[in-house]
């Protein structure tokens, strides 16, 4: 498909806790990054970052993915994240320029804290300036966002949300986009997701990247910059954009 303009350039995707933080079809995001890298003529490589000491390959990761899990799974990774992954993750992002995509539970854990309904606070690792508190009603349904990332075409992002957390952005974080349809971060300020430096957090799944190939390529492109890579080849995204457009159309009808 894509021309191998970059030739023999590796793209390494690091999946944080693939066996535990994998709810809501998170695998779709991983498959999309790997397949598109291949179609762009890159050499895709997946590093699975399970519980325990971080493997040395963690330093090679270009794009980290951090998905959501159920309560039990989330509790199981909570200490491990702090003990083994936080430091190499911070190093990779701040010094190596690696990208991070975090969805739902992963998004919350990268923030300052998560506060439960009874006021108990669970500290996140504070890599993005957001805080989350439990909400009563679960937000479930289609979401359409007009993104704030100015290089993206189309400017819309589509997905599905299913969360009860209410996330609020601090001054360091920019929203990923403005809501056209759905509840987004907190159901009150019209924002969805957060972008801070190399980190993108969001509640969108569905999965997110398969129906938003432009966001997938944006992440791949930014990750490659640190390798001195040029522009990505142009892929045939008609299937992906048809699925994207189908959600847009349905959202408009409602």
């Amino acid at each position: 498909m894509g021309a191998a303009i970059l030739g023999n350039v590796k793209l390494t995707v690091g999946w944080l806790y693939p066996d535990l933080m994998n709810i809501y079809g998170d695998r779709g995001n991983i498959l999309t990054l790997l397949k598109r890298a291949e179609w762009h003529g890159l050499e895709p490589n997946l590093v699975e970052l399970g519980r325990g000491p971080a493997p040395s390959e963690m330093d090679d990761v270009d794009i980290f993915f951090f998905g959501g899990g159920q309560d039990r799974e989330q509790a199981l990774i909570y200490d491990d994240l702090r003990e083994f992954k936080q430091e190499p993750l911070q190093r990779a992002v701040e010094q190596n320029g690696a990208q991070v995509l975090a969805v739902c539970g992963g998004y919350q854990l990268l923030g300052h804290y998560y506060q439960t309904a009874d006021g108990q606070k669970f500290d996140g690792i504070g890599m993005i300036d957001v805080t989350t508190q439990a909400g009563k009603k679960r937000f479930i349904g289609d979401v359409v966002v007009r993104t704030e990332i100015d290089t993206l075409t189309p400017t819309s992002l589509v997905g599905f949300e299913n969360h009860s957390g209410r996330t609020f952005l601090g001054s360091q974080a920019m929203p990923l986009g403005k809501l056209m349809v759905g509840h987004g971060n907190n159901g009150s300020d019209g924002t969805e997701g957060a972008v801070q430096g190399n980190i993108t957090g969001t509640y969108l799944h569905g999965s997110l990247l398969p129906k938003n190939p432009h966001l997938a390529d944006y992440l791949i492109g930014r990750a490659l910059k640190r390798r001195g890579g040029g522009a990505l080849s142009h892929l045939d995204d008609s299937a992906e954009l048809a699925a994207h457009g189908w959600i847009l159309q349905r959202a408009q009808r409602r």
Partner: protein
Amino acid sequence: MIRKTAAVLAGKATGTLSRITRRGGGTTLPGDVARVIDPKILTLLTQDLTHGSIVITGTNGKTTTARLVSWLLEGAGHKVVANRAGANLIFGATAAALNKAGPDGRLRADWGVFEIDEASLPRAIDEIQPRATVVLNLFRDQLDRYGELESIARKIEQALATLPEVARPVLNADDPRVAEIGLSLPRPPLWYGLDDPSVASKTLPHAADARTCPRCGASLIFDAVYVGHDGVYRCPNNDFARPEPELKATDIKLDGFDSLALTIKGTRIEMPLGGLYNCYNVLAAYATACSLGLEPGYIAERLRTFKAAFGRQERVEFRGRHLVLVLSKNPAGFNETVRTAVDLAGGKNFIIGLNDRKADGTDVSWIWDVDFEQLKGRADLVIPAGVRAYDLAVRLKYAGVKAEEPQTDPGKALDLLIKNTNEGDLAYLLCTYTAMLDLRGELVRRGWAQPYWET
């Protein structure tokens, strides 16, 4: 008592009305109406049963297992009340009981066999007080509707713990979530499980979602994987393992969607139902029937002539083409039906149908956990269909599967399938619940299939 009779009559009138207006199967409206008039109606009606009730739950296999249990009881001369496939909420069970109640408000039957969805099980146990409760499996399913698996498992455990000693639960030992529930009960349940390494795989599929030890949180070690996360597992720290099944299925033989054979404690079962996942359903029904006192020899004999329920391996013939309809509604289920179709039946032509209505689950992200990669290079024709056909097309593209243009119109999907399927060949329709209803509705319109309320 007057209140019960009034509730029954009101419910029955609603039932007649909804049949006349052809709302079709799975309607729970009579149950809704009767429960408003008398909230205890289900308890009162099931108390009329001469023998009692059996409640069956689990993410996958409820309908088939309930059918199997009813089939066995009916063959032994019992009159059975059962709810329809899809009407597995408490209202559906109530509607079924109402339907068989006489004008005096009495339910005249021997047994109630109710399939109940996982989230409704605690309430069903409380209201029905079943003689046997079967928990088949707990897989990830329809996250938007049920919330999280964890809290459901805990509620099921609490409900089972309230049952009297005679109502021994029948539980799948091979499912770590179900085992966790059963091991916490005050009295040991009747465990069943598969025991045949020749049909097991060694690795967990991507859809597996119960991988950790409930005691210490370590990742479980699987010595055998049968379906989804169901298999033979143990914790590396030795504090949790698959309970030893009292009833085991051995010497399993599978022939596509056509038949299966297995041996349980020396009794050979051979029957016209296919797929490894159905071995679990057959074993669960066998265990239940045994616990109710039916003889193994009778069970084996009766199962030979079993017919599958609507949309569960139903066959439709059209001008020499054989269409096989198989409901596939979540990752664990889909992986098994795709595996059975491709590996065991050598299937080449497919419609994959995905809807996102309430009964299907409105969140379709789970399709990314299905290993559609199994179709790559092996299927000749794959048609993405249903309301979310476009999402399926993307999924198939990233699985490396060559697929046709997405078809949101069921008629067009069928036309494309027939056009590209030779006479005498088989084609498989693997669909979520309402996607199956849509396709089947089209088959009925064309006169290829009977309306389901007549089957």
